[in-house]
């Protein structure tokens, strides 16, 4: 029975994330609208958008190669696979053993690589511009993300996400300067990776400064639906990563039905708080010029590096 339960929970995790991803995007949009004194679209609008797009015909440019058709499926599958590795309810489920942080960054890298190729494939100037900018952002964001993982791995002695959450849950509560820096760096990198303000504006494709939307301009129908869904899933993935690494309290450390059930509302609360934080920061910040983005990401990298150094200086040599 216990085995069956944990297997079911492990299979349920990615499906739950997949189902919740549009809701999180809708929630962020809704809070943002309220902060700007608008009524905002209903929470379920992203679901309706997806359904509408899935029902429409997919138009492909004459110049596009087969890669253009394959890219949405690869991007979606890689993002889903990365999300499947994250511990959602519990740290002891069967899937926890493959939840390696470096593999997760690799899967996200694969998704991004295909997205960039697809952006270049149709041969439109906006696609190429978006692709070039995406690579610019990535080349700064990915090292910072890896440094965050290394900082945490030095304290927890593992790169397994479930193991990291377990180590934080198991030990006594300690104020660690390195975690503080790593958290700040992860939030900054997450904003850049998910294409949110101040790096990119997800609400419009009418700006000349667009990054993510620029690569999607040629997509329509089910292809666009998959790409949009993958982007929403990525936002949820980064929120979950923040929760798992820095606020794991509430995750079940045993496969026991009550603990699994209790983990869910607490997780929803934490995600809602992160969504509110994102909405507030998107409301008070203005989008920055593209050429300022490397400076922003250098700050994130510096924070992650300081996290690493402060671990070595202040925590390890004690």
């Amino acid at each position, binding site marked *: 029975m216990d085995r069956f339960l944990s297997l079911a929970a492990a299979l349920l995790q990615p499906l739950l994330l997949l189902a919740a991803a549009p809701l999180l995007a809708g929630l962020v949009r809704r809070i943002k609208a309220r902060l700007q004194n608008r009524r905002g679209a209903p929470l379920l609008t992203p679901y309706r958008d997806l359904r509408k797009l899935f029902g429409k015909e997919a138009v492909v440019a004459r110049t596009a190669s087969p890669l253009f058709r394959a890219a949405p499926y690869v991007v979606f599958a890689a993002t889903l696979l990365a999300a499947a590795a994250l511990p959602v309810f519990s740290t002891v489920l069967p899937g926890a053993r493959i939840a390696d942080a470096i593999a997760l960054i690799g899967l996200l890298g694969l998704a991004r690589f295909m997205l960039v190729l697809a952006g270049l494939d149709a041969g439109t100037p906006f696609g190429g511009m978006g692709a070039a900018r995406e690579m610019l952002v990535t080349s700064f964001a990915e090292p910072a993300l890896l440094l965050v993982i290394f900082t945490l791995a030095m304290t927890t002695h593992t790169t397994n996400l479930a193991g990291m959450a377990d180590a934080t849950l198991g*030990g*006594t509560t*300690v*104020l*660690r*300067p*390195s975690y*503080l*820096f790593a958290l700040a760096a992860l939030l900054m990198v997450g904003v850049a990776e998910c294409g949110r303000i101040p790096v990119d504006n997800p609400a419009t494709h009418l700006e000349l400064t667009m990054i993510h939307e620029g690569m999607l301009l040629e997509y329509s129908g089910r292809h666009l639906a998959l790409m949009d869904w993958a982007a929403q899933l990525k936002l949820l993935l980064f929120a979950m990563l923040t929760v798992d690494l820095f606020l794991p309290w509430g995750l079940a450390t045993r496969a026991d039905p009550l603990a699994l059930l209790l983990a869910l509302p607490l997780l929803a609360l934490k995600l809602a708080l992160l969504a509110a934080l994102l909405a507030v920061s998107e409301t008070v910040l203005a989008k920055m010029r593209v050429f300022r983005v490397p*400076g922003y990401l*250098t*700050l994130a990298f*510096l*924070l992650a*590096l*300081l996290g690493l*150094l*402060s671990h*070595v*200086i*202040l*925590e390890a*040599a*004690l």
Partner: protein
Amino acid sequence: MSLAALPLLDQAVLVLAAMALFSAFALLAQSRLLAAIHVFAWQGLLVAAVAALMGAASGDVNLYVSAAITLALKVLLIPWMLHRLLRRLALERQADPLAHPALTLLAAAAIVVFADWVAAPVAQFEHSATRNVIAISLAVVLLGLLMMVVRRQALAQVLGFMAMENGLLLAAVASTHGMPLVVELGVAFDVLVAMVLFGVFFLQIKDSIDSLDVDRLSQLSASIEQDEEPEPRP
């Protein structure tokens, strides 16, 4: 001994020291003078908070006094004076970008590693729980020095000098529970007098070369005039 075994106050001191190190980086990278003054004030506040926390941990009244002096001088008085000076020199919007930002930040990170290496033997012989702050404060001192080297604006260089003093105070407070009060008062007034003198100097420099860019001090005044007003062609 692991971090978890330390009392909460000492853990908070470590966190604040790490944040002071970050503020030293922020000061180094901040190109706008007005924002740099604000960062300097925040750094002073962090050091004052470390002093107050160490005072709470050890029950030493001297540390509260030095926290109060730091708060009054480094957080309020000196930033206010710099602010007034900036307005008087009409430099509020002046930015002094680094010539090689990436290189400077790499050098700064290398300095932190170097400071840790230098402080390692010192830290071994100490018994205080927060002895590792010595490395951090040495790094803050050296970063202030680096700031004086890489910046061209005289006002930014003064900020670097003041940040060095913050680092010294951090070392004194966190590792040896503070300097004797007489020394502390002497240093505090030294810094204050230095600030006043710097102010007078700035006005003089501004008067004679019409800028606070110290690189231009190495040119002869005749050549400066030539730079600005090319001779009319006959």
